[in-house]
């Protein structure tokens, strides 16, 4: 999330994302007004949902919204308004469900739509922007608001910075009354009734943000209806996954279809893995060293196939799992193991590698650089394993060796 232009240095602490309809269920639980709606997983559900909504609200308009984790769904054709009742909603749903939705955030391949949200239509008087997030520079929760809703907030911040309102929340005071009033007046909620409605909304949002350990909560647009109600028309929520230990319910909110299957598998094994486009597989301990290993491979003329941090206290089983993941990729033409053991013991790494290669065999060049805790024992285990391993004396030496070996293997 690009907050820099908002003069607020905050990326979400984590990227556990949920769908809009799930976000709105959370909103509703905390008392944040949201439109009436229901999720649909296949087309046959859409008609009855639309009929129910129309009967309940007396408004013949319903909105069919694709549920994918990427933003910019409207631009990609993933959000459509049905004015012709249940039949039109169903025919729109047929087009959207199963489509490959391409938005500015999905990449060119797009994301397959597997869930829909059917929502009541509302008469919009004006659109606003509202977000809560953790500002890492100020070390506080920040509220960002703007009267320019429904637009790209980055663009607003860039072109009309005076339209962006920022409030920082002191964790001791919580969201203070005067801050809510500042926001309300700045957003044009002047009357007593509206002030009351907006206060209730802000109080609920702050409670949701802290109660659910969010790292980002964004509503774009927040709308004022023609009848003067303030409603969250959208809901984007990211959680801080460090706090998952106090939120057992998060597991159910995850949607594996929205994630890279290899990265998901890695996470389940307690590994941090990101697929990249190159052909040299990397197994490293520590996030910084893992990034630096990718960098040095590129610097030496090769291309990394992945980022893989086995973490500090990895077990033999985790290392073995990590190594098997690399071995089973068809793209990988060479492997570089780069370990500087602090907590991580080099002998544990060696045992994990040996176990994995025994199972799957080793058909590509392998360069191993071991340093740090129990390095002698680790090297001895690898020497005695009989595996075709090139050992490296340093990170630079290892990178050069694996780039050369991979090139030779491909030639």
């Amino acid at each position, binding site marked *: *999330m*690009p*907050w*820099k232009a908002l003069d607020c*240095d*905050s*990326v*979400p*602490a*984590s*990227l556990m994302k949920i769908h809009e309809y799930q976000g709105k269920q959370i909103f509703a639980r905390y008392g944040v007004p949201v439109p009436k709606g229901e999720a649909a997983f296949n087309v046959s559900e859409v008609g009855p949902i639309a009929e129910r909504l129309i009967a309940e609200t007396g408004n013949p308009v319903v909105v069919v919204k694709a549920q994918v984790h990427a933003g910019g769904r409207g631009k990609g054709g993933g959000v459509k308004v049905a004015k012709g009742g249940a039949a039109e909603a169903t025919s729109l749903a047929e087009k959207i469900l199963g489509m490959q939705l391409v938005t500015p*955030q999905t990449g060119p391949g797009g994301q397959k739509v597997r869930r829909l949200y059917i929502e009541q239509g509302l008469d919009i008087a004006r659109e606003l922007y509202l977000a809560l997030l*953790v500002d*890492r*520079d100020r*070390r*506080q*929760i920040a509220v960002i608001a703007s009267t320019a809703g429904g637009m790209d907030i*980055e663009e607003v911040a860039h072109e009309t910075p005076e339209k962006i309102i920022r409030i920082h929340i*002191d*964790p*001791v005071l919580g969201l203070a009354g005067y801050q809510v009033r500042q926001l309300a007046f700045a957003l044009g909620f002047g009357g007593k009734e509206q002030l009351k409605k907006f206060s209730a909304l802000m109080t609920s949002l702050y409670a949701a943000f802290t109660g659910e*350990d969010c*790292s980002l909560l964004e509503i774009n647009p927040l709308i004022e209806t023609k009848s003067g109600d303030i409603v969250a028309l959208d809901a984007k929520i990211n959680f*801080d996954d*460090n*706090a998952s230990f*106090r939120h057992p319910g998060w597991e159910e909110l995850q949607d594996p279809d929205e994630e890279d299957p290899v990265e998901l598998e890695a996470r389940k094994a307690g590994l*941090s893995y*990101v697929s*990249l486009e190159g052909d040299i597989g990397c197994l*490293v301990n*520590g*996030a*910084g*060293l*893992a*990034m*630096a290993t*990718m*960098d*040095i*491979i*590129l*610097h030496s003329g090769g291309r*990394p196939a992945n*980022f893989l*941090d086995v973490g*500090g*206290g990895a077990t033999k089983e985790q290392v073995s799992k990590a190594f098997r993941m690399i071995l089973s990729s068809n793209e990988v033409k060479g492997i570089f193991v780069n370990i*500087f*053991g*602090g*907590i991580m013991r080099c002998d544990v790494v060696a045992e994990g590698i040996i176990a994995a290669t025994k199972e799957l065999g080793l058909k590509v060049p392998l360069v191993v650089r071991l*340093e*740090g*805790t129990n390095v002698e024992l680790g090297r001895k285990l690898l020497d005695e394993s009989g595996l075709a391993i090139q050992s490296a004396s340093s*990170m*630079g030496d290892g*990178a050069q060796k694996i780039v050369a070996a991979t090139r030779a293997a491909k030639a």
Partner: protein
Amino acid sequence: MSILVNKDTRVVFQGITGAFGSQHARACIEYGTKVVAGVTPGRGGQRFEDKVPIYDTVAQAVKAEGADVSCIFVPPPGAADAIAEAADAGCRLVICITEGVPVLDMVKIRRSLEGKATTLIGPNCPGVITPGECKIGIMPGHIHKKGHIGVVSRSGTLTYEAVGQLSALGIGQSTCVGIGGDPVAGMDFIDVLKLYNADPDTHGIILIGEIGGSAEQRAAAWIKENMKKPVAGFIAGRTAPPGKRMGHAGAIIAGGQGTAAEKIAALEDAGVLVSPSPAEMGVTLQKAMAAKA
């Protein structure tokens, strides 16, 4: 001299009887660190490895053993509470090794430390070492060498890499500080740089950053205005794709911001010599020292 910790530092380990805490308490004791007490609630009166007395609370450990620094190995659900307890007990320095502390817990902790004399390092960090005198944390002690270079870093293993390169070149370190990779944490680069700048025993500095956030850019601005000593730098994640979180909670390029290129440009503009490769951090420091000599 050195910064933050030295041979007289008296350390209490919170979570000393846990698997992780005990392993590293042992390694710190072996290194020569004065580990004067451990804290595990409910196990007060016992001893760790028949030597180090265990207390129920940090306050007791401070009172009885004169501990002035706490090192925390308490698991994430209790880590913020452990930091608050150490600060309340009067520890001047609290080093939280624990990985995975919720960011909103840290927002509250940072606020609660305002106006207190306690300095926090971490969480999610390798700790602090003054070679030959005091090691508090999880870094391998044997790769270090006593000397005059300060190393400050957001990444644990990359710090070891830099230290390993320095020691191999025969260059020792004054104090190495891992500030951790979390978005909201204790000391930042500038806090540590100020101490190095004032420490007569530190003659040069390696600063190791990574993608995400703008701590390196702020450090660069500070260096440009204030730093009297040569600084070499490295930024990890030049090749990281945007939008993908690289292990550390803070390491992500978001919306084209927080990139390595941006950080490298800021550091170079401040006169920092940035290493082109992680394998050349030691050599780059040597060059930076030679250029300023």
